[in-house]
């Protein structure tokens, strides 16, 4: 018994000493061995290798720093990071998707404001990349992936049925009708996790109303709300497409992450997929022949007579941040720069076909070049609504969009629900 008590006391003391150890200090003393933890979501072989290579470069230049890197699957990552931030054992560097999710961490004081030190390197990055790393006019991170969402199509199917790359929605619908008549699913979609279908909704609403409508509705100004007709029309168009059979049966149950919709696309059973920049890398890894022989892409078509332009794109990416409470802000910032610099960006293009937000990369592949030009030519890059908005509102946006695809809600009902939540989260519209 006494031993047990002694043991218990020893343990309690040991634990409290552990947590008390190490008050924050500005930088590590010269020659002192320090450890920096990096959490990211590049779990596939090529992205992880790129990350490891950049870390190795940093370590070679800074032998006193040991960098421990962890790659975590997309959805578990969100839970793990939140738990670590709340529980008090977070990594020194971590990624977010910018927007509302990032803002939650900034508000909680978990993200280091790097506005000052970033001035020395800011000129190396593309504007859309820096813009998703900002809140107000303060910079909180650097972009490590960045890219537009496009309509990807199967070139061979287009050749076979004599279709032309569309620039207007009417042309696109014509192509879909021809494909449908020939027994091909016009658009592959795996919408179980809701964000894949949301991309289509965002594009349609932007093409109907122009990019400014969402911004105004979000800022609650200029009399715009989420019940604006562009949102209702976008919902109506989606339901029209669902009823016409443009989508695979049961798309709300198909999981994008486990590849359901991509299988339809790769196997030629579906002709288009409207997806993020990540599809290029996925295709290159999962179906290299398809990537070489079949894959093509075009900008989301415009709607004749509507306000939206083809140079307003939906995109997004990952931003890497320094933890606000890190013990070594200087070392962490230096690492941050290395993990997003030109060499890293070039490796990402070469290994994973992913654009990263740094200027000056050389692109050989015509398809990626095309994607890059879409990004460079964009007048507006709107972050995905579900990344941009506060998480509680983003969930309603995604839930209602999924319900639109499932035909269990009318476009007006969906818009009304989003607006009601917006009033709750963002305040009434002015």
């Amino acid at each position, binding site marked *: *018994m006494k031993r047990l008590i002694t043991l218990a006391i020893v343990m309690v003391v040991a634990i409290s000493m552990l947590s008390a150890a190490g008050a924050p200090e500005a930088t590590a003393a010269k020659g002192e061995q320090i450890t920096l933890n990096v959490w990211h979501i590049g779990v596939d072989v090529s992205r992880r290798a790129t990350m490891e290579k950049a870390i190795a470069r940093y370590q070679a230049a800074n032998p006193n720093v040991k960098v421990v890197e962890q790659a975590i699957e997309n959805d578990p990552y969100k839970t793990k990071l939140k738990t670590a931030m709340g529980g008090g054992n977070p990594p020194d560097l971590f990624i977010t998707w910018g927007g509302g999710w990032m803002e939650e961490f900034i*508000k*909680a004081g978990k993200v280091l404001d790097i506005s000052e030190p970033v001035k020395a390197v800011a000129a190396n990055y593309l504007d859309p990349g820096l813009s998703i790393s900002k809140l107000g006019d303060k910079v909180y991170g650097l972009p490590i992936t960045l890219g537009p969402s496009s309509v990807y199509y199967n070139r061979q199917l287009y050749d076979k049925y004599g279709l032309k790359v569309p620039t207007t929605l009417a042309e696109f619908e014509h192509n879909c009708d021809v494909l449908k008549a020939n027994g091909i699913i016009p658009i592959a979609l795996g919408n179980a996790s809701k964000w894949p279908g949301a991309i289509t909704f965002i594009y349609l609403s932007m093409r109907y109303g122009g990019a400014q409508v969402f911004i105004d509705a979000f800022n609650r100004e200029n009399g715009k709300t989420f019940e604006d007709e562009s949102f209702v029309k976008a919902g109506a168009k989606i339901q029209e497409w669902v009823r016409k059979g443009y989508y*695979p049966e*049961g798309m*709300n149950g198909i999981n994008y992450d486990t590849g359901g919709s991509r299988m339809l696309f790769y196997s030629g059973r579906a002709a288009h997929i409207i997806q993020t920049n990540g599809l290029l890398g996925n295709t290159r890894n999962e179906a290299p022949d398809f990537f070489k022989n079949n894959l093509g892409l075009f900008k989301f078509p415009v709607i004749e007579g509507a306000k939206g332009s083809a140079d307003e794109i939906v995109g997004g990416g990952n931003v890497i941040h320094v933890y606000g409470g890190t013990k070594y802000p200087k070392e962490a910032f230096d690492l941050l720069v290395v993990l997003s610099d030109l060499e890293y960006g070039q490796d990402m293009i070469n290994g994973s076909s992913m654009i990263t937000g740094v200027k000056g990369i050389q692109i050989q592949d015509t398809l990626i070049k095309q994607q890059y030009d879409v990004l460079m030519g964009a007048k507006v890059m709107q972050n995905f609504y579900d990344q941009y908005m506060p998480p509680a509102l983003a969930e309603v946006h995604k839930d209602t969009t999924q319900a639109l695809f499932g035909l*269990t809600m009318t476009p007006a009902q969906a818009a009304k629900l989003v607006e009601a939540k917006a009033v709750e989260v963002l305040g009434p519209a002015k």
Partner: protein
Amino acid sequence: MVPTKRRAINHKEILFVVAALVPGLLFYGVYNLYGIFMTFQYSTLDWTGISQNTGFVGLANYLKLFKDPMMGVAVKNNLILMITSIVIQLPFALLLALALNSAIKGTRFFRTIFFLPMLFSTVATGIMWQLFFDPMFGILAYVMQQVGLGAYIIGFLADVRTAMPAVLFVICWQFIPFYMIILKAGLTNISVELYEAATIDGANRWQAFWKITLPLMAPTLRTSAVMSMVGSLKYFDLVYIMTGGGPSGATELMATYMYKKGFVEFGMGYASAIAGLMFIICFVFACVFLYVTRVREAH
């Protein structure tokens, strides 16, 4: 001095009992009692889960909970799950256990086969059945196509009408073997002599089942029922993997809703209130059930 001596032994025994219990109690205290206590504390806060700032809001989270229509849906789905668990899983498990307990050849082989679903990891099970129900590439769709039911193929996990039954089916598939093994253990404990005596007295197998097997299995069945009940009230994993609570909340459970509110929407205070309510519901159900069945047993 006899009484004093006895007390001394008792004292020593108590010491031993306490010493033996301390590690267990320590774990129980830290991971259960402390957790439950903290959950209730968090549930009175307006807290994002990551911030140092917390605002005390009293019972506001609970009031919000009772007005939240999605919570009603989740509770209803949990009750459906609970009823199917008890009404379908336990009788099926008992049937399988009886089959395994009989003198049929090859029971060992079948025991292994029947038990397999329990051995798979839940994530693998979820993804496997997701593929099974897939309307494009799934086996179910293929079979339906072959037997001429092609017109009825839908996204079984994507349709509000079929998602819940599909998930319930998989949950039953996974858990029947678990209860089968427990019930099988219960059956093994029933002395063979009782059946022999009954046969001599002229009872048929049906009578033997109702008069011997079932009454003697009552404690095991009762334990299984409580486990099944509490398990289904706090169920999470297969639903999270297969449908994530969707489509449109058709398979939302209290636990998946709690996860969504806490980890996706940064509402840890509100999520804790859901957890608190789940605790209360489970506790009440378990207590009432145990009380009611205890009275029955006494009769």
